[in-house]
């Protein structure tokens, strides 16, 4: 969605050349704002990540230094959290894609004949956004707690071991991440599938391709921009999320992700350099992964 929208930025060759002073006037306030409150914070995050504890200082007092060992320390200390973040986010992205694709296909292709139904279904896709995502996650926590109807039924049917739990496990965290980011996956998929020219599919079956081949060779390649945008819009926030994995929500002591340790270090332990170093690692890893992914999926013009 957002990613696809930026693709059109460059394609304005007919944009008239007019006084650049007006352009400057229009751009300056907003760009200045982003420089002040987005770009410089990133720089101060890098500076903070290199700080060393102040001499004779209290807890939470640091001075500027070039203490790059901070990075080594946090990786040694929090490697499981780092791996968990990316593992959980990857699993949630795959599940959200599997869940959303048929849904987006139905809304975007099958429901074309009924525009009103189509727009109603789109409202239902974004409806979860209208209610606080913390409350939605807590609702799942209650619905999937040990005493809940769903879990007791599963145990009665012997589909779950009698002493097993769901909340507090990695499955619960991945489940929560999947649920919370499904709309981010469904919407970009819908946007590309809605524009899918079904005559290509007909041409495929006219050439004796079976429906599965048509899907694999035509539908998927044509919907690639939506798949890439959706997976990015799901993976990036999922990797940085710490609500689902939090102990008061769907997680437990063994499911803490990078976001949880960044929060704990920054707001509770007042270990700002560690929190900053972890943030920089998270951002750098995401940028590297995203650029490799975008290159390999052949949709570079998307960014």
């Amino acid at each position, binding site marked *: 969605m957002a990613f696809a929208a930026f693709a059109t930025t460059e394609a304005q060759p007919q944009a008239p050349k007019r006084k650049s002073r007006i352009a400057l006037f229009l751009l300056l306030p907003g760009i200045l704002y982003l420089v002040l409150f987005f770009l410089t914070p990133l720089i101060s995050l890098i500076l903070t990540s290199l700080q060393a504890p102040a001499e004779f200082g209290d807890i939470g007092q640091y001075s500027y230094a070039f203490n790059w060992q901070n990075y080594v320390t946090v990786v040694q200390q929090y490697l499981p959290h780092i791996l968990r973040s990316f593992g959980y986010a990857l699993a949630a992205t795959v599940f959200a894609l599997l869940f959303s694709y048929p849904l987006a296909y139905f809304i975007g292709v099958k429901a074309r004949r009924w525009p009103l139904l189509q727009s109603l*279904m789109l409202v*239902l896709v974004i409806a979860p*956004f209208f209610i606080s995502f913390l409350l939605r996650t807590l609702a799942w926590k209650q619905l999937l707690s040990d005493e809940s109807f769903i879990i007791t039924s599963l145990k009665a049917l012997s589909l779950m071991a009698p002493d097993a739990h769901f909340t507090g496990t990695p499955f619960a965290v991945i489940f929560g991440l999947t649920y919370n980011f499904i709309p981010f996956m469904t919407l970009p998929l819908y946007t590309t599938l809605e524009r899918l020219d079904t005559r290509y599919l007909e041409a495929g079956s006219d050439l004796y391709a079976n429906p599965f081949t048509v899907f694999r060779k035509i539908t998927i390649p044509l919907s690639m921009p939506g798949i890439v945008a959706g997976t990015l819009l799901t993976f990036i926030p999922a990797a940085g999320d710490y609500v689902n994995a939090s102990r008061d929500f769907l997680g437990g002591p063994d499911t803490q992700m990078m976001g949880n340790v960044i929060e704990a270090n920054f707001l509770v332990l007042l270990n700002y350099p560690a929190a900053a170093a972890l943030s920089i690692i998270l951002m750098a890893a995401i940028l590297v992964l995203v650029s490799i992914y975008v290159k390999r999926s052949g949709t570079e013009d998307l960014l």
Partner: protein
Amino acid sequence: MSGEVQAAAVLGGFTESETQEDRGPRGFPRRRRIGLGDWLLPVYTVLAFVFLLIPIAYTFVFSFNDSLKSNISWRGFTLDKWLNVCNVEGGAVCQAFTNSIIIGLVATLIATVLGTMIAIALVRYRFRARSAISLLLFLPMATPEVVLGAGLAAQFLAVGVPKDMTTIILAHTMFCISFVVVTVKARVASLDPALEEAGRDLYGSPSQVFWRVTFPLLTPGILAAALLSFALSFDDFIITNFNSGSVSTFPKYIYISASRGIPAEANVIASAVFLFALVLVIGAQVSRAARAKRLAKLG
């Protein structure tokens, strides 16, 4: 029909159903494919929506729960929580809710103005450093919220700014700008420049042309962007948590109360907001459909 095709149809119902062209090449009625896909996909869609809406239904139902302090087990139906929302914990829920509304409104206002200006410049003007500016607008959307939040908090800490309502508003405005630009830009790009030209030909001054022609035509896009900004700001927790100090917002209130149990009053507020947003969006869809019908009649 081979089993392979059947299996593939089961995988997702990819066969287009033939409603009109049910005849084979020689005029023989082609055997209607009763692919599982014909009903599997609609059934799946219904189930998917049920799944998506379950937590919303749960939140709504439990806003009527005659609960005591925490709202976990069902204790009977009551309208009491809806009628006396602000009575719990000295009105802490309502205070948090009011803060969220104020922050959302101010951040939306600033972000919409700044973002709309950028969107117009991006579509209508040529300037250097275009790709750098595009990247600067794109990056905040591609950065995890926890990094945005920690970065701003580190900066406020370094400069020595105390965290309060202002720092929350500054943070929210920052992540809303990019979304406003994306939304409004689509609208500017679809605008016919001939309309503005006509305004200039009729001796309209630049500001007259902007306020009488451009701005009214952009209004739907700007409104959509403002709604999106408000929704993003209102529901934001992660960035707020890093930059709020002791100020409470509605999501922050829920996060903090989660360990000791959320009062049903929070469900009341969330359900009311949900219903309000739903009515707003459906109303917008219906009025757009009605306008499209009117235009179709005229054309």
